[in-house]
């Protein structure tokens, strides 16, 4: 099966800071893959490459078999991403934002109303449908951003910290949304700091450290946090700073 989302040997530096250092991953259709790692590990940079928002110095990225920086209309209609700020404008109402997002994702007028209604229902946005987005709480704005991203029923989805501002109900709604999309065949790549949360929704959990994927964690078991730290510390032990290496030589 061809990966719907793929990064292969991706490397990138910002000035002299290495952000990605041979980053590899693939996500098959119907699969949910989670990226976990410390702040600055390279998760968001990798997601930005997949969204076409950053051209890497080396390596290649693929979304539905195409370069994400040059997606055709046909493929773009099947893609969605929320990395940092979603496609939400504060002066527009919830419904207006969703209609605009649906049109920008390539939905026809005929399909617009049904898609918006479904998206409002999936993210529980009904009570705020006619409110301007600027009047929503941070959590509800995050729900609106997710609703706007998936209003067209994507086949490949990239999400960065989708539950960071959500209350427990919002977390459940997003979990159901991701599981529902995966059941429909969507490939989902999601980054998160919440190990327990990703273990509930992901098929695979990839540990990111120092700009690359250093291993994967099984989703079962109760010691996920311990295994995560053990993997990161083991990777750290393998990285000998050049100065320390020189000192250590006889």
């Amino acid at each position: 099966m061809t990966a719907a989302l793929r990064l292969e040997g991706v490397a990138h530096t910002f000035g002299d800071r290495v952000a990605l250092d041979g980053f590899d991953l693939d996500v098959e259709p119907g699969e949910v893959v989670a990226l976990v790692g410390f702040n600055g590990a390279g998760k968001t940079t990798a997601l930005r490459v997949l969204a076409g928002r950053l051209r890497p110095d080396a390596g290649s990225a693929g979304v539905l078999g195409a370069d994400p920086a040059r997606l055709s209309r046909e493929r773009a209609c099947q893609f969605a991403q929320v990395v940092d700020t979603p496609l939400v404008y504060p002066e527009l109402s919830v419904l207006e934002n969703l209609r605009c997002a649906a049109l920008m994702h390539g939905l026809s007028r005929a399909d617009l109303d049904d898609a918006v209604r479904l998206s409002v229902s999936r993210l529980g946005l009904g009570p705020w449908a006619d409110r301007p987005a600027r009047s929503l709480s941070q959590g509800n704005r995050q729900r609106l951003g997710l609703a706007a991203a998936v209003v067209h029923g994507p086949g490949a989805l990239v999400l960065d910290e989708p539950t960071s501002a959500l209350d427990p109900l919002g977390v459940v709604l997003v979990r159901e949304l991701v599981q529902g999309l995966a059941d429909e065949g969507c490939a989902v790549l999601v980054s998160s700091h919440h190990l327990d949360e990703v273990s509930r929704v992901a098929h695979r959990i990839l540990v990111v450290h120092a700009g690359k994927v250093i291993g994967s964690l099984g989703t079962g078991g109760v010691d996920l946090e311990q295994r995560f730290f053990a993997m990161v510390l083991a990777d750290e032990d393998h990285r000998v700073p050049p100065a320390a290496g020189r000192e250590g030589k006889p």
Partner: protein
Amino acid sequence: MRSVWTTAWAVELLKLRRSVLVRVVTPLLVLGVPLASVGAVWLARRPHLPGTASAKFGAYATGPLAGAHLEVCGQVLSVAALGAGGFAAAWSYGREFTEGTAGALFGLAVPRVAIAVAKGLVLACWLAVCVVTCVGVTFVLSVAVGGDAMSVGPQIGVALGAGMLAIGLASPFCWVATITRSPLGTVGVLVGLVAVTQVVVVLGAGSWFPYAIPSLWAGAGGPEAAAQITPAALSLTAVVAPFGLALAGRAWARLTNV
């Protein structure tokens, strides 16, 4: 399936309609400029005008009333439309970066070049409606205060032309807002360009400098300076609009690290 252009147009038009910018700038252009124009001519024709004001408004102290109203309107519009267009471009393009939504415009079925061009066209059409309305309101106000409605065709034409050219001159600020990724930075460039224009006019090269041409053509430099504005200079000024929009579209198509 709707075309990417009509989709981008519809979305950008809705964003503009809901904006504070439209609610503030539209009345300033369609009411503020006509009132200022009629008021300036009324002041010019007052007896015992103070020395400074007399030097400034003396040219309008005599002659047909309606013609004077519309000439002042054209002069004010040539600056006001540029300022409004520059601020609008700074807001429309720059906000996507300061609010973080520029990144969300990647991977969409509507390409970024269509979004960038639609932004510019929506702003241009809104400002064009404002300019036409402004000249119309000035004409009606002029007639209401005793102006002669006949024989003002040339002044109406110049006022409309100067306003439209000034709108077009704002289009490079769409590009400036994109490459600076900053509304405030764009406004800074706008202010700087107005200052440079003043210097160019003082040095006597205004008749070939696009940013000076609309106001000189409208009579801000006097009848002699207006007579020096050739059709070729007006054409050069008009070319700035598509050039600026093309630059902005190209910059949006090539955006990265967002």
